[in-house]
C-alpha cells in the first residue's frame, strides 16, 4: 500500500487550476501509476476532506532528440479532485 505522500506529488499551480478551486475542484500532480481510487483515498487522508469524484489525465512526455538519439520526457499524471460541497483545501498558506 502506498502512502498518500507517494501518490500526491504537488499541487498544480497555474491560473487554470486556481480557477477551479472556486467550484471545489483541486488539481494535483500525482504518481502516474496510481489509480482514481488510490488518489481519492490519499486526498481524503492528507487533507481530511471528503472526495466525491476524481478525474485524471495522463500527459505523455515530449520526444526530445540530441543528435541521433531520441528520448522521451517522463510521463506525468494530473488528477482533478472534486470535494464534497463545503470542504476545501488550503493550498496557499497566508503570511
Amino acid at each position, binding site marked *: 500500500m502506498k502512502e498518500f505522500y507517494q501518490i500526491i506529488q504537488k499541487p498544480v499551480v497555474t491560473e487554470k*487550476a*486556481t480557477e477551479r478551486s472556486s467550484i471545489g475542484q483541486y488539481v494535483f500532480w500525482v504518481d502516474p501509476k496510481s489509480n482514481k481510487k488510490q488518489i481519492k483515498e490519499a486526498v481524503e487522508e492528507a487533507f481530511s476532506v471528503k472526495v466525491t469524484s476524481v478525474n485524471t489525465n495522463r500527459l505523455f512526455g515530449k520526444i526530445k532528440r540530441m543528435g541521433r538519439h531520441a528520448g522521451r520526457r517522463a510521463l506525468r499524471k494530473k488528477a482533478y479532485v472534486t470535494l464534497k460541497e463545503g470542504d476545501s483545501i488550503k493550498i*496557499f*498558506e*497566508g*503570511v
Partner: protein
Amino acid sequence: MKVEVSEITPVRKKVAIEIPSEKVDEAINMTVDALLAEAEVEGFRKGHVPREVVVQRYGKKILDQVASTLIEESYPAAMQEQKLVPTSKPELDTTEVKEGEAFTYSAFVDVAPNISLKEYRGVKVEKKEITATDEEVKDSLRKLQEGAGQFVETTDAITENDMVTIDFECTIGGETIPGNSAKGYEFKVEGGARFPEFEDAVMGKKTGDSASFKKSFPEHYHDKAVSGKEVEFNLKIVSAKAKVDPELNDEFARDLGCENVADLKSQVKKQIYYGKERAEKDRQKSEAITKIIKENPFDIPESMVDKYYKQIASSVLEGVRRGVANPRDVNVSSDEFKTRYFDMAINQAKGDLILGAIAKKENVKVTEHELKQAVEGLAASRGESVENIQEMLDKEGVADVLREGIMKEKVFDIILG
C-alpha cells in the same frame, strides 16, 4: 500612532513608536496590491496571479517592505510631533511586522541640543590695526619679478640657480658605459642634478668647457654596471642659461595689467591690505565664537562631532595629497592627530550650532536677492558667467552651502555689531 521619548543623554533620545494594527494591515494591503500588478509567477500571466500565491511567494519581502514604509512614514512625523531635531540617522530597533498586530519600533537618535542663548551681542573682540607696509609691498613686488623671470642663454660663468645642459660620458678604465652616458642632460644648479658632483663640476665654468670627476659607487648601488666601482665622468657643457628677472619699470607694470609702476605699487598694496583685512576678520570671528561658546555651554551629540571630524580629516588628507600639508605632520593613526582635530571638530560643530541658534532667535533670513548677489560675486571672482555658476550650484546642490555662508555672515554682523 503612539510615541514615547526617553532621554539617554541630553542630546541622545530613544523614541519608541507604536503603529496601530489597522495601519499595519492597511500598509500590508497596499504593498500586496502594488505587487499584484508586478509579480511574475510561472503558471500565471502577469497581473493575473492570485493574491494568495503572491502572499505565499513574497511574504517575507512584503513584511520587510511594510516595515520600512511604516518607519519612513511614522518616523519624521513622530520627530515633528515631539519637536525633536535629529542630527543623525536613527539607529533602529524593530520588531517583526505581523498582520493584525500593532507594529512597534524604537529609534535611537542624536538630537540638536537646546541652546539657551545668554550673551552674544557685542562680544568684546580685540580689533587690530591693519596696514600694508612698504616693506611688504617691496617683498611681493620682488616675488612678482621673480615669478616672471626667464632663463636666458649666457656665456658667463655658471653660478647657482642656472639651468645647465651637458653631454656626459661615464667610463670605467677607459671603457664607456652606454647606459650611464647621456646627451643633452639638463639640470638646475641647486640640488637638481642626479649627482651633486655634476653641479660641483660645472660651477664656475662656461659654455663649451669640459670637466671630469671621479666617483666611487657603493657596493649596494642599484645599478649593477657601476656598483662598487670607481667611475670617471667626462662632461661637456652644451649650454648654460641664467635666470633674468624683469626690471621693475612701467613696461613690467603694463605686462601685469597696470598703467605704471606707481599704479602697480598701489594695486599690490591694496591686495596686501585686503588679504590682511580678511585674515583679521576671520580672526575676530573665531575669537567671538570661542567667547560665545564659553558663555553658553551646552552638550553636543557625538555623531555631529564625528561628522565635522571626518570633514576636517578628509580635508587635511586632501591637503597632503595635493602637497600642501606635510605628511609627517599628519599621522592619521596617531592619538595626537585625533585630539588635535577632534577639539577643532567640537569647536566647529558648536560654533555652527550657536550661529544657527542665534540666526533663529534674531530671525535672520537669506533672501533670494542676497543669494543672487552672492552668485554674481562668485561668478565675477571666478571669471565665469552667472548662468554657469547657477547651473553648477543647482547641479551639485551646494546652493545650501552658499546660503549658509551668507547667513553666517549676517549673524556675525549682529554679533560684532
